[in-house]
């Protein structure tokens, strides 16, 4: 996945599109599944910025006169704050038929930490 990370001004490619996601967590980490149809791999970008995971994709439209458009041309964008027990170095992702699946592993060894509650 390579694409320019320079953000374009809003409106240059139409509105932002917010892809719907499923987010599932189990003992191995977190899986993010995002619907991003119509975007070839070379127009996708997945990156971590400080503590954020950022998903972006450009939806280019085919030429012709639009008679009706429920999905206007634009940029898909979604970002999530990662918590500290997740390992940003271990993120892996795959895309198939417009569905992006991201796996974010937990940092080694750190599982659920029991927090003692003090009291009398």
């Amino acid at each position, binding site marked *: 996945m390579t694409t320019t990370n320079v953000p374009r001004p809003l409106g240059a*490619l139409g509105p932002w599109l917010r892809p719907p996601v499923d987010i599932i*967590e189990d003992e191995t980490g977190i899986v993010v599944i995002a619907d*991003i149809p*119509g975007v070839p791999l070379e127009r996708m970008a997945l990156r971590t910025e400080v503590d954020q995971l950022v998903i972006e994709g450009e939806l280019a439209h*085919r*030429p012709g006169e639009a008679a009706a458009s429920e999905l*206007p041309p634009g940029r898909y964008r979604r970002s999530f704050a990662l918590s500290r027990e997740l390992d940003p170095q271990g993120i892996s992702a795959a895309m198939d*038929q*417009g569905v992006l699946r991201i796996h974010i592993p937990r940092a080694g060894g750190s599982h659920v930490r029991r927090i003692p509650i003090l009291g009398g």
Partner: protein
Amino acid sequence: MLRSVFPQDILAELGRLQREAGEAGAPDDPMASALEGAEQAGAGRLASALPAQPALAALTAGMLTAPGAAMLHSPALALAPGIRDSRGARFPALNLRTSPVAIEIEAFMPGLSIDEVRLSLEGDVMVLTGERESQLPESDDGATVHAAERFSGRFRRVIGLPHDIDTQAIEARYALGVLTITVPRLQPVMARPITIQDPSRDDLTGRQ
């Protein structure tokens, strides 16, 4: 149903929109300058004026700054759920494009296999049905679901087509999670000149 986007004079209407968009001073319009070429300005505004999702409508509303933009809300061109479209369902999202030779329908339906999709034509009404399985785990899986926004279940979209289509030549292709359906229009018979006979002239030539 998208019947209403194909009134018989749709091409005339689009032509008029383009002319008016041109007269409205396309260079000053941020939307138009973002498009490749002034002649697409009318179609581009038309597209952005008709999003189905309220959030997108709010986003695009602010962009319709050009004079004459209000005309795009004419009821004749409004994208409204039709009588046969299922209960306001918006999966898959549909984009429709027209040209003199074909109608192109894009259905944004990621993560399906072709076996799960059915496309049929009933008269001049195209019906797209299918089912998308949930990717969420079963309840007793030891997993926690933090977000469940993606569509799952059965879907059905109904698209009204104009009459001048070649039903035998419809093609559909699924790539990048988008089903692209191309419906060719019937081409009118090529114009051919018809000789006009003038008997009086024949008489004159006969005399000469």
